[in-house]
């Protein structure tokens, strides 16, 4: 069981009269600027839980306090007010020695500018955490070697960081954190200094690694696309406060305020929205035992050109189009089986971007859950609408979109 993190009423104020500023903020709430002159509030009234084994992304522009927040989670920066718990142990009450011990055993960190030690080889860098933990030389070199392999850096052990490209350097940074074998990983803008192609590659690698390792990850970024790609849940920060916490889809489809909706305007919706969030409820499906007349009646009733056919378990087995059904009636078939055509099935969590290639031909896509039961349909027009305004995307069961 990997650790979870709880953060309660966290404040970080810089300046000589920081405590005073916090008490003003606590008493009166309100604006940060108005608190006490000469103080800067970096983190204000922040509470959240990071669940065991999830990637929790904190997203915000520079100056929003996200890096400060991260540094309070492992105690590199002392908190001005509030509490941080790792599982049920309060980190904010620990002595300096205890907190160093906690970092050795439970938390490691990946830095924006890699922070590799230039006077140590790649292998020695990766072994740093283990060295601090007091592991024997043989053990730490073995485990550092393993984690370098994990990030694909076999053969680079004896190079120096400066001999590596940026992407490779950050892999060393990741390997150093992984080798320490802590169950919490703090990542501070870890991929922000990399160029876009490498960044994407690193994101993929992190997701793959996470599937194997299942660590609790707190990931800081200013890049919304990155946040949506990586985050199981995302906290959006603005001027020290968290304005919304939710899944990528929740933030995209139901932004908490104007700031968030402004923010999500440019996001690549096709990669974030899933079939489940753009599908129509399956109002137009008939059992495979139904007659062609029933199928036609449903089409007319619902104003759709096509209905899906489901078996007795509710799994989609085909689709019937209006001309075929009419033809079937003329020929006097008793069930729709003769008229049905094959239908493409997609899982509910398939990204919209992948639906485009799946949706060939005029037939709608059948969206199924894990057990294969029909839960909705996606018409091509709904796909296009999903890429447009937020309001059009979710649960739009519009028969007028049928053609």
């Amino acid at each position: 069981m990997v650790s979870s993190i709880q953060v309660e009423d966290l404040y970080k104020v810089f300046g000589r009269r920081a405590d005073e500023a916090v008490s003003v903020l606590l008493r009166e709430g309100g604006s940060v600027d108005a608190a006490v002159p000469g103080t800067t509030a970096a983190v204000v009234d922040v509470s959240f839980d990071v669940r065991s084994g999830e990637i929790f992304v904190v997203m915000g522009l520079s100056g929003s306090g996200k890096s400060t927040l991260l540094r309070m989670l492992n105690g590199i920066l002392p908190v001005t007010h509030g509490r941080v718990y790792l599982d049920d142990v309060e980190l904010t009450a620990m002595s300096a020695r205890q907190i160093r011990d906690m970092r050795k055993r439970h938390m490691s960190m990946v830095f924006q500018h890699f922070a590799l030690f230039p006077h140590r080889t790649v292998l020695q860098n990766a072994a740093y955490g283990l060295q601090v933990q007091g592991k024997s030389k043989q053990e730490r070199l073995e485990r550092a070697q393993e984690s370098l392999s994990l990030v694909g850096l076999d053969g680079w052990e004896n190079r120096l960081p400066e001999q590596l490209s940026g992407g490779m350097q950050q892999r060393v940074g990741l390997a150093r954190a992984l080798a320490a074998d802590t169950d919490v990983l703090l990542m501070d803008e870890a991929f922000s200094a990399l160029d876009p192609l490498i960044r994407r590659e690193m994101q993929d690698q992190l997701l793959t690694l996470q599937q194997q390792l299942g660590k609790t990850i707190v990931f800081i970024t200013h890049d919304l696309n990155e946040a949506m790609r990586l985050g199981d849940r995302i906290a959006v920060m603005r001027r020290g406060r968290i304005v919304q916490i939710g899944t990528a889809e929740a933030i995209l489809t139901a932004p908490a305020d104007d700031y968030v909706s402004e923010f999500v305007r440019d996001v690549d919706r096709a990669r974030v929205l899933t079939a489940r969030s753009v599908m129509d409820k399956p109002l137009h499906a008939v059992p495979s035992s139904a007659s062609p007349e029933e199928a036609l009646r449903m089409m007319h009733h619902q104003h759709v050109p096509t209905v899906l056919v489901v078996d007795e378990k509710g799994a989609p087995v085909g689709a019937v189009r209006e001309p075929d059904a009419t033809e079937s009636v003329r020929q006097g078939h008793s069930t729709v089986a003769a008229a049905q055509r094959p239908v493409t099935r997609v899982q509910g969590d398939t990204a919209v971007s992948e639906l485009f290639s799946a949706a060939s031909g005029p037939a709608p896509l059948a969206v199924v859950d894990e057990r294969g039961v029909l839960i909705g349909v996606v018409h091509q027009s709904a796909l296009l609408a999903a890429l447009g305004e937020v309001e059009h995307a979710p649960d739009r069961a519009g028969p007028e979109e049928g053609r």
Partner: protein
Amino acid sequence: MRAVPAVTDWEVPRIPLGERFSELVGWLQDNLGEFFDAISEGLDSAVTSLAGLLTWAPTWVMILVFALLALWLRGWKFGLAALVGFALLDGLDSFGSAMQTLSLVLLAGVVAVIVAVPLGVLGARSDTASRVIKPVMDFLQTVPQFIYLIPAVIFFGIGVGPGVVATVMFALAPGVRLTELGIRQVDREMVEAGEAFGSSPARILTGIQIPLAMPSIMAGVNQIIMLSLSMVVIAGMVGTPGLGADVFEATTRLQLGAGFEYGVSVVILAIYLDRITASLSAKSAVSRARRLAGAA
């Protein structure tokens, strides 16, 4: 109307700073005299034995040793230059004095480094300490060199003792400053990386900050050595042996030729020491790692 001349006549009363200072020095001398004597004797015997060591072998052997050291640290050109330079010292009959001066510089330099580096580390770790140390260093660096000699003579008599002590005081400042600067310039993220993996402050200092600050610290050592040389020559005025005493003698007797020869000897020693210590600063942790990685 009568108040006006009163204002213009007013002046700051005489402040007896000098008297107070000599009182303080006198008090220290009365109460800690034996302590200062012991230091003076210790320094004297240290310099004497070091100089004895440097002149124990035949001069041509020592010239070769200096040349080989130069060759090893900087290559054949500097090795050859050192060979010529030290041969010239011998030709000017100042090799013995130069070795005495070198002993003084080494001893004062080592003591200054031992004092300066920890002070620099302290200044880098604590802003309060830095605020105290900085003006003291400013003071030590800007007081005219000769002024150091007066209390040094009072405390340590004449000879090696006052020379070394005055030299240490005068040469300290750049070592402290460059150590503090070097450590403060280590990337904040690098230090955070140490912290994030649970390193203790001592481990971060010795494993990350000092190795990465090494080029700056070694530049400080270079400055300490150069200032030591300059002060050791001045200390010839208070009977500190070596090239300084020779220069001082030539000056008081207005011996133009001898003065020129001793001047050239000081320059040769200065260039040699500067190049040698400068090449040490190139041997930083990163460059050593670079060489090792290149070899692998």
